[in-house]
């Protein structure tokens, strides 16, 4: 096993990496569009949040190959069903952290916000949301890293991405391809993780807490 494939075919590896990023990013963005309203609703209604998180947790336990296969009759193969599956898996991390983050904001702080004369919308936008941001972004980080690793499997139904190298490597008995794919996927996951950690540290509340410790 060597790094030959990675060095000789770096152009192709890069191409597949871009495909992988596009696939994962589309899935996470679509997941967010659904998760933000669901998370807000779950934060406000404990009665809804328990069953909702239960269902989303159950979805996450469906084996990924089975999930993809299940969608072939209705959505066919390619990127579309892959995005659907990845977005569904990401829900549990996103909705859970959005709900916990929003609910976790200090009651006295929210009462002070009401007391200053903010409308409900202003309280949400100016106080609750920014204070929940670190926890919510932490959920986005877990969701993104999980999506990047799961997106590998999507190559099995022709969605492209770095998984292609792994499946090629298996069928052609070419461990160099597997190694190249694995290295690229790991690098992508680590970089994403680092970037989102940085995003957490740049939120207003994280800056304020840092200032308080200094």
């Amino acid at each position, binding site marked *: 096993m060597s790094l030959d494939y990675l060095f000789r075919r770096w152009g192709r590896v890069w191409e597949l990496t871009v495909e992988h990023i596009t696939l994962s990013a589309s899935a996470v963005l679509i997941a967010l569009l659904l998760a933000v309203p669901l998370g807000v609703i779950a934060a406000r209604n404990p009665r809804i949040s328990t069953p909702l998180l239960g269902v989303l947790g159950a979805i996450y336990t469906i084996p990924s190959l089975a999930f993809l296969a299940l969608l072939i009759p209705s959505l066919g193969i390619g990127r579309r069903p892959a995005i659907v599956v990845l977005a569904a898996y990401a829900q549990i991390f996103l909705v859970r952290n959005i709900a916990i983050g929003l609910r976790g904001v200090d009651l*006295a*702080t929210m*009462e*002070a*916000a*009401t*007391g*200053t*004369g*903010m*409308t409900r919308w*202003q309280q949400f936008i*100016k*106080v609750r949301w*920014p*204070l929940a941001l670190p926890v919510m972004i932490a959920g986005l980080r877990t969701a993104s890293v999980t999506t990047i690793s799961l997106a590998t499997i999507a190559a099995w139904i022709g969605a492209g991405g770095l998984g292609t190298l792994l499946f090629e490597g298996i069928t052609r008995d070419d461990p160099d391809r597997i190694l190249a794919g694995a290295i690229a996927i790991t690098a992508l996951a680590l970089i994403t993780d680092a970037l989102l950690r940085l995003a957490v540290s740049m*939120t*207003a*509340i994280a*800056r*304020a*807490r840092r*200032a*308080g*410790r*200094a």
Partner: protein
Amino acid sequence: MANQRAALSTDFNTATEIRIDHVVKRFDNDGDARPAVNNVSLTIEPGEFVVLIGPSGCGKTTLLKLINRLYDPTSGTIYIDGTPSQSLPGSELRRHMGYVIQQGGLFPHYTVAENVAVVPGLLGWDKARTGVRVDELLELVGLPPAEYRTRYPAQLSGGQQQRVGIARAIAASPGTLLMDEPFGALDAITRGRLQVELCDLHDRLGQTIVFVTHDIDEAASLADRIAVMREGRVLQYDTALNIIMRPADEFVANLVGADDNMRRLSLVSAAAVMSPLEIGEVIAPVEPAIDLPIRVLPVLNQLLESGAPRIIIRDAGAPVGYLDLAAIQAASVPRIQAQSTS
């Protein structure tokens, strides 16, 4: 002090009159238990400093929150300068009432300046006017703007946070300031200092203040009038002196420590029980004197230590009255009023 008043760029709105008229507040989850606030009526005059006092669960905080409509009454009406509070949207009403809670309730992700600028921002003030105002207010509460403007609440002590909380509450010159145990979490020294500063601020700005506490000492040093509450009702609404000297019933008597002379003398202001000086009376320079504001107890101490027949009371350096043993003795004998049917 006069200079600081002149430095304020915006005049304070006129102080608000608050009339609480047969207000009942019952919480949904109470079932048919007694209401949190049970048929309370009281009028707070414009510019008056009123303290609501009582044990926990007596309804004092609920009553305060009914005034700025954090809660809506189950029945009854609260009139703000004659207008029923229900006729305005709650958020609109609250922008014109300062609200201070324990630890200031500051927004932790905002700097000191951003915290103080919240209400001006909601009212649509422009940046320049808000900036000037923020600096003035920080000066006013003793936090030099150059040093504190860009700090975060996590970088401030409890007392400093509370000063910012007060600055935020009065930023848009509200006619009313509502304070819910604002100094409850502070150490005794800081609390004492902030009490003095709050009184000073009230003298200077003159807005109506409603202040909740469970500390009779604090109530006695701050209030024009004290409302003693128990189980949702107001038992007595009167000056500190009358509450201490003529408690309406056993409960109020216990609250003010009516069976403990020393305790009571430590609550009563010397100004409230001193005898006036004769017109043209000559004060010998050797006569011991003491400056207001001061309670009776330290005056008694000085009387006993000096052996003099009386202690001269001075206000801003000028003699205004005196206290002797007879006057102090009169101040140490409380009378519980006959049970009224109110």
